[in-house]
């Protein structure tokens, strides 16, 4: 948690590093479903990107979400422990995906 806090503070300092007349970026709400430890999903995913990245992909399979979380850890170096990776994958499959067969009403 300490590490996360540090990242956030760094982000803030970049934002104010070159003050005189900065552009003002709006903050957009991307509501995600609650439950199944969504707080862990928020804690890690939001370090680098909004939930727009999740919501605009459509429903995805378990192997897809597992591969995506692994990409975040292996390629983008997201500091997510093994246990939390599993929680995030389960959350994404339950709320934004499907177990094996494609959802016929989805994509």
């Amino acid at each position, binding site marked *: *948690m300490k590490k*996360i*806090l540090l*990242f*956030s*503070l*760094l*982000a*803030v300092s*970049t*934002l104010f*590093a*070159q*003050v*005189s*007349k*900065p*552009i*003002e*970026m*709006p*903050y*957009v*709400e*991307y*509501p*995600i*479903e*609650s*439950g199944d430890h*969504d*707080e*862990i999903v*928020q*804690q890690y995913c*939001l*370090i*680098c*990107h*909004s939930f*727009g*990245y999740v*919501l*605009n*992909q*459509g429903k*995805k399979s378990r*192997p*897809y979400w597992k*591969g*995506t979380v692994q990409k975040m850890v292996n*390629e*983008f*170096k*997201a*500091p997510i422990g093994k246990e939390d990776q599993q929680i995030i994958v389960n959350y994404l499959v339950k709320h934004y995906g499907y177990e094996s067969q*494609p959802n016929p*009403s*989805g*994509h």
Partner: protein
Amino acid sequence: MRHLNRRHFLGAGLLLGASALLGKETPSKPIAIPQEYTPPIIAFPEKKPMVAISDRPPLLKSAKGREIFTQAITPNDEFFVRWHLPDIPTHIDLNEFRLEVKGSVNTPLSLSVDDLKSKFEPTEVAAVLQCGGNSRKYYAVTGQATHGVQWDHGAMGCAIWKGVKLKDILNRAGVKESATWVGLNGLEKPAMDETPDFFREMEIAETLQDQIIVAYAMNGEDLPYLNGFPIRLVIPGHFSDSWVKMLSEIMVMDTYRKSFFMDVAYTVPDNDCECVVSGSDFEYKRKPIATMKVKSVIGYPSPDTLIKKGSRVKIAGVAFDQGKGIKEVMISLDGGKSWSAAKLGQDYGKFAFRPWSFEWEPKTKGDFTIMARAINRIGNIQPLPDEIGWNAGGYQYNAVDNVNVKIV
């Protein structure tokens, strides 16, 4: 493990740090989401309200949908936006901003925007900027849905770019004989130091092409911040992942640097068709996406438009390719059985959108499918939707576009 409260994230990104200190709170009521998510339309700096696919990093497309593609030049305030990393400067002081040219050069340079404007010969090119993943949602019409944000045709635009030839900058610095690659980096930064930076690499020979410029103006104005103010790389004919925004560093190198975004992310199968069986995973040899493929998009009408029988409809759109030039755009109104040539509009150059139009006076009621198919001057033709080769990343989609309308 402490909970981070959602409302604090949503209220303001800056409170992210503070919210971590607040401890556990009761989760709010679940929010129902529709089956297919519709992103909000929000005004961003120097932009009209745009469809906000993401705000951090920003991914925006015109709120006009297809209609933006009835004109050859896309206005700056409606031009699509796509960044890769979350920390983007929200202010650039032109007195301090410098483009550094370094590495294997005889004279390292540190150039202000004013230097670029006053000490080099200006040049202009009209060119299409298209995301490699543009239109990828349509892969799901005939195959498996691909990875990534499911863009419709909105991740493209065409502008008149003004700036300085990249080769003039490199010649001013004097590239050493040992140099083989040029690395190009901008000011967008990851949230964590460990995350790979977003940069591009080009072989020296490629950087010497006349049409590649470092642009400081877009459609006669400064670049909007969100399109890469104050300068960006313009590589006509190439997908936009190479067009580095807020360009701050040109590093001339003797060896290739491995790069996540070039070697892993923006890649297609390394075979002749650049395709694999639909539904395959990324377990294939890859190569970076590079030049664009011939494509046309119908700007008007939009799907499900009701058209009165006997009225005169002007079907309109744009076509483009990798820079060979569009030879012809063919229109079909009967599901591809017969094709007629559209009228080509103003020619802004071989790298630009070529606008086209087709007059239609529907004489019978019912459902019609309008299709548009472009052919370029070297005979490249768009594949039909069921002919297009599939890739897991959903890149380079260029199948024949189609729109269903109802004549009433």
